[in-house]
């Protein structure tokens, strides 16, 4: 239905430009004759509406009004990729191997600018995982780690020991096919207790000085 409305609008505008060209090019008398003939055809020709005793006039007006409805109202929600547990597990394993590798390597570069190479890899791999297997429960933990690292470049603040334990926390979950919420909640809390700021988002508005 939405497409039809959009189509009407497009057809309507293209018709008018064709008519403009026609008016410019054609002789005025020929054009008048053409207009009269098409008008008479449309009134004389029996239509489905006429046969049924209905008037199409109201419908035409309604369709004209529909032309003014913006295209955005025909918006269809986009579905994210969904996989079964097996496929999700395979993709997770594939990306996580590189993720764990970077979590290990960053420990050797802490305090040096070269740590940025592995921090960037960790961040990009988690985002890649989010795009490929958005519904994987493992991502609850991975995204918490992402927020703790990516926010205001906090990755630079953490120590090698913290990355080491983060590695262990992720490693423990990576091989679990069917991860439960209680496992992800526990892992996120462990990351936080380790010092990772998994909820770094800030509100500066004073909400509490009124009462």
């Amino acid at each position: 239905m939405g497409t039809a409305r959009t189509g009407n609008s497009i057809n309507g505008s293209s018709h008018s430009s064709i008519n403009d060209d026609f008016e410019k090019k054609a002789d005025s008398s020929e054009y008048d004759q053409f207009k009269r003939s098409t008008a008479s055809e449309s009134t004389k020709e029996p239509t489905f509406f006429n046969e049924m005793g209905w008037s199409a006039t109201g419908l035409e007006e309604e369709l004209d009004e529909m032309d003014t409805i913006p295209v955005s109202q025909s918006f269809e929600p986009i579905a994210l990729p969904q996989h079964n547990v097996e496929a999700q597990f395979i993709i997770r394993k594939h990306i996580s191997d590189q993720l764990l590798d970077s979590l290990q390597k960053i420990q050797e570069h802490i305090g040096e600018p070269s740590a940025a190479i592995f921090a960037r890899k960790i961040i990009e791999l988690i985002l890649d995982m989010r795009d490929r297997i958005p519904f994987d429960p493992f991502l609850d933990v991975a995204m918490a780690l992402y927020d703790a690292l990516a926010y205001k470049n906090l990755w630079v603040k953490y120590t090698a020991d913290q990355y080491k334990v983060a590695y262990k926390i992720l490693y423990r979950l990576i091989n679990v096919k069917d991860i439960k919420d209680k496992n992800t909640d526990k892992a996120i809390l462990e990351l936080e207790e380790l010092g990772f700021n998994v909820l770094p988002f800030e509100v500066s508005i004073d909400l509490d000085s009124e009462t």
Partner: protein
Amino acid sequence: MQQKRFLDTSVLRKLLFGTQAYRDYLKDQFKDDPLFISAYVKMEFKRSFIISLIGFYNVLNMPSIENTSDALRFWSNEYRNPYLKAIHELISDFLANQNLISDSAFDKAKALLEIGRLIKRYMAEIRMKFKDTGIDSTRCAREQVPFKIDRYNMESDFEKYVMQFKDVKACRQKCNIHTFLDKKKSKIETLITEAQKLSKTRHTKGFINISENLNKILNEGYSKCTCSMCGKIGDAVIALDAPTNMQIESLDHSFDYLCPPLRLENKKHPSESQLHKKINR
């Protein structure tokens, strides 16, 4: 020796989404002391924050909102209440960190899922990070509404949660606020007497309003204490139900007047702007 600290909702909010400077200040104050919250404080946090976050999820989920930029613009134009402005600030910060503020409909779909994840993370945080006082005299039914969110059914699960949380009629029928207030009647009368001695200023206004509402409940009967009325006397409920062996940590002026008559220790923390002025001095 460790000090047991009982957090009011205002301090809980600062710990979870205050500025980094404020969180650093609180960490410095609390050190390794055990931090407690009660079921009623959890409910207040959910009422003011979690329900509003789900509200943003629902706005973004509208078919007429094509992307996250539109949702943020819509929220900023329509909602001026400070709590809802705070949600705008927090969500903007969150979506920007995940590179999801854009005109893309695909990013909208990703943002919906990630906001859902964020809400779950906050809910797990208040459930697991803080110790429970173990005192739940009001037995608030809104706090007991189950929060079960399936990643594949977030939309309907959030709807179910909000509908149950907002069903104040059903929740009020299940709670125990009337018995609680009846048991605390003499303490409530003391608070009312104290409030009558004060003149209304910017600092006393909150406490006086609470005592006026407590007075109304005493005069009209405890059964008249609806969820909306309960919200107006929230600080008094928290103070009346606070463990006596803990120090109440708060930002609200009202606790300066609620705690002394109830013989409770109270630590009043500065507002965000007061703290920043202090730091910049």
